[in-house]
C-alpha cells in the first residue's frame, strides 16, 4: 500500500482573479489507483483547481507535479500528453461531429502518419485509421455508447453526452482522470449507471481518478478520500466518514445535503 507512487502532487497552489483569491494554498497528494473527491459549496474554487491542473489557467503561485514531473505552466495539450485527462462541468463536446469522431480526436496526438500518407492514402494511413477506430469503439463500449457511434454528438440526451465526454477523455490514454461534476443533471438511474461505469473504468484501466461532485451520496459512496474547500481554502481532508462528521464541513454545507448525510 505504501509502495504506491504519487500520481499528482500540488504545493501551495493559488489562483487570483482580479482582486479575488479563488484558490489559496491548495495542497494535495494522490496515490496511484486512488479515487479522491474534491467537494465544496458553489463558487468555492473547485473547477479553478481543475483548470490549473490542466493548464487552462496558469497558477498564480505554487507548483504541480505529475508522476514527480513538474508541469506547472505547461500548455494544455502538453499536459494532456503527460497523462492528465478531464471532463468539463458544462459539457464541451464537438457537437457537429459524430460520436465516434469525438472520441477519435483524442488520438490525434498519437497518430504518426503525415501529410504524405494523408494525400496518397498509404497502407500506413489505413492501418492507423483502423487502429484508431477500433480503440475508439472500445472506449465507447465502456460507456455503453457503441451503438450511437454514427450519431451527431449534440443529438445525444444529456446523460449520454456526459458519458461521451468521459469516453473522449479515456481515449487520451491518461494516468489521471479529472471528472468535473460527472453526475450533474443526471437522474438517479443515470447516476447509478455512471457509478457502475466509473467502477468499470477503474477496474479495466487501473487509473487514478480525481473528481468534483455535488451529489454527496455519490461522493461518500465511491471516494476513498475527500478534500473539502470553501472560499478557496482547504477546510478538511480525510476519509469519507471523517469528513461527514467534521464540524467545519457541516457548517460550510449548513442546510445542504451534507448535514442530512452526517
Amino acid at each position, binding site marked *: 500500500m505504501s509502495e504506491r507512487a504519487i500520481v499528482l502532487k500540488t504545493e501551495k497552489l493559488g489562483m487570483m482573479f482580479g482582486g479575488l483569491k479563488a484558490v489559496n494554498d491548495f495542497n494535495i497528494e494522490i496515490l496511484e489507483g486512488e479515487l479522491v473527491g474534491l467537494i465544496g459549496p458553489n463558487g468555492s474554487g473547485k473547477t479553478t483547481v481543475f483548470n490549473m491542473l*490542466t493548464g*487552462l489557467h496558469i497558477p498564480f503561485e505554487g507548483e504541480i507535479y505529475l508522476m514527480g514531473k513538474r508541469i506547472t505552466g505547461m*500548455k*494544455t*495539450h502538453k499536459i*494532456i*500528453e503527460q497523462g492528465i*485527462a*478531464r471532463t*468539463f462541468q458544462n459539457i*464541451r*463536446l*464537438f*457537437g*457537429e*461531429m*459524430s*460520436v*465516434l*469522431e*469525438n472520441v*477519435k*480526436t*483524442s*488520438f*490525434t*496526438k498519437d*497518430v504518426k*502518419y503525415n*501529410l504524405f500518407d*494523408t*494525400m496518397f*492514402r498509404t497502407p500506413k*494511413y489505413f492501418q492507423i*485509421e483502423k487502429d*484508431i*477506430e477500433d480503440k475508439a469503439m472500445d472506449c465507447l463500449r465502456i460507456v455503453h455508447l457503441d451503438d450511437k*457511434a*454514427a*450519431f*451527431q*454528438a449534440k*443529438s445525444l440526451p444529456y446523460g449520454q453526452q456526459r458519458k461521451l465526454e468521459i469516453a*473522449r*477523455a479515456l*481515449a*487520451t490514454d491518461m494516468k489521471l482522470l479529472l471528472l468535473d461534476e460527472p453526475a450533474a443533471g443526471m437522474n438517479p438511474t443515470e447516476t447509478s449507471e455512471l457509478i457502475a461505469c466509473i467502477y468499470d473504468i477503474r477496474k479495466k484501466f487501473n487509473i487514478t481518478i480525481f473528481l468534483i461532485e455535488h451529489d454527496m451520496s455519490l461522493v461518500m459512496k465511491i471516494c476513498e478520500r475527500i478534500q473539502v474547500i470553501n472560499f478557496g481554502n482547504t477546510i478538511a481532508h480525510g476519509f469519507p466518514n471523517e469528513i461527514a462528521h467534521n464540524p467545519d464541513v457541516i457548517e460550510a454545507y449548513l442546510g445542504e445535503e451534507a448535514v442530512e448525510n452526517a
Partner: protein
Amino acid sequence: MTDLRKKSLRGVITNVIMVALLIIVIYILSVSLSDNNYRLKLVPIIWHLCIFILLGTSLNLTMGFLGQLTLGHMGFMGIGAYTAALSSLALERAGLFIAKTAPPLQLIGVMLGCSLLGAIVAGIISLLMGIPALRMRGDYLAIVTLGFGLIIENVIANLPFAGGNGLAEGTASANLYQNGLGINSRLQAQYVYFPILLTIICVAFMFMYTTSKYGRAIKAIREDEIAANASGINATYYKILTFTISAFFAGLAGGLYAISTSSLTTGTFTFANSSIWNSTFIVVMVVLGGMGSLTGSIIAAIGMYMLNYEIKNGAWVAAMPQFLQSIFAFPMLIYAFVLTIVIMFKPFGLMGTYEFSLRRLLFRKSERAIGGEAK
C-alpha cells in the same frame, strides 16, 4: 474477412467508375473544344472556373473547417500571381524561355514551376502572418486578415518592379509583362487540361486533408477550442498549418491567373471592388456553398461564376430595362441578394457540411456510415 473483401471491392469499383467518368468528361470536353466557336467561349471560362474553385475550396479550409473568418484570401492569390509572373519573366529575360515558342514540356514545366513557386511564397508569408494573427479570434481575426490583405495589395503596388497599375503599365516596367508567362488564347486552349488536372489534384488533396486526423483536429477546434486542447490537440499548430495550406492553394490559383491573363493589376487582389475578383466574392462563395463542404464550394464557384458570366454576356440582360442593367453592372449587389435569400432558407449554405461521395451514391443501401459524417 468477407466483409473486408466486400469493402475493398467496393472501393475498387468506385475508383474504376470515377476514372471512367473522368475520361468521359474529358472526351466530351475535347470534342466541344475542337469546335472553334465553342473553344473561344469555353477556354477562358475553364481557366477562370479552375481558379475560383481553388480559391473557394482553399478558403473553406480556414473558414468552414477550421471556423476562422479570414478576409484577406485574395492577398495570397496576389502574392502567387506576382511571384509566378515575375519569376517566369526572369527566366525569359535570362533567355531560357519564350512562351510562344517553348516546346510543350518546357512550357508545362515553367507554368507548373512558377505557379508552385508562387504558392510556396504565399504559404511562407501566410505562415509569418498566421503565427501572430491566429492568436486572435472571430471579428478580431477578420479585421487583422482584412488589414493584411490590404497591406499585401499596397506593398505589391509600390514595388518598383511590379508597379502601381500592374506589370503591364507599371511605373518602372513599361513592357515588363508583355511576354512572360501570360500565354495567348491559342496556347490557353492547347494547355486547357493543365488547370483542370491541377485543380483536380489540389481539391483531392484538400478532401484527403479534411477526412484525415487533420480534418478531425480542425473541426474539433472549430467546435470548441478549449475542449480540443484538452483532448491533446495542439490547436495553435493545426490552425497555422491549415491557414498556410489554404494560402498555398490561393497562391497556386494566383499562378494560374497570371498564366491566363495578359496583365496584372493589384486591384484584382483586394477586399472589394466592382468585379468578381475580390476577397468578398470568395467569402460569399464559401458561405453560399456551405461552410465545411468542399462540394458546396465547388458548386457555388461554378454557379456564381456562370451567373456573373450570364449577367455580363447574356442576351437577356441586354433586353432588360435600363435601370436593371445598371444594377447588373455591379455584380456584388446581385450576390448580396442571392446570399441573403439562400441564408434565409438554408442557414448553413446550400450543402451544409455534406460532401458528395460516389461510393455512397453507388452503395447507399448496403453501407452504414459509421465513423463518417455525423447522421
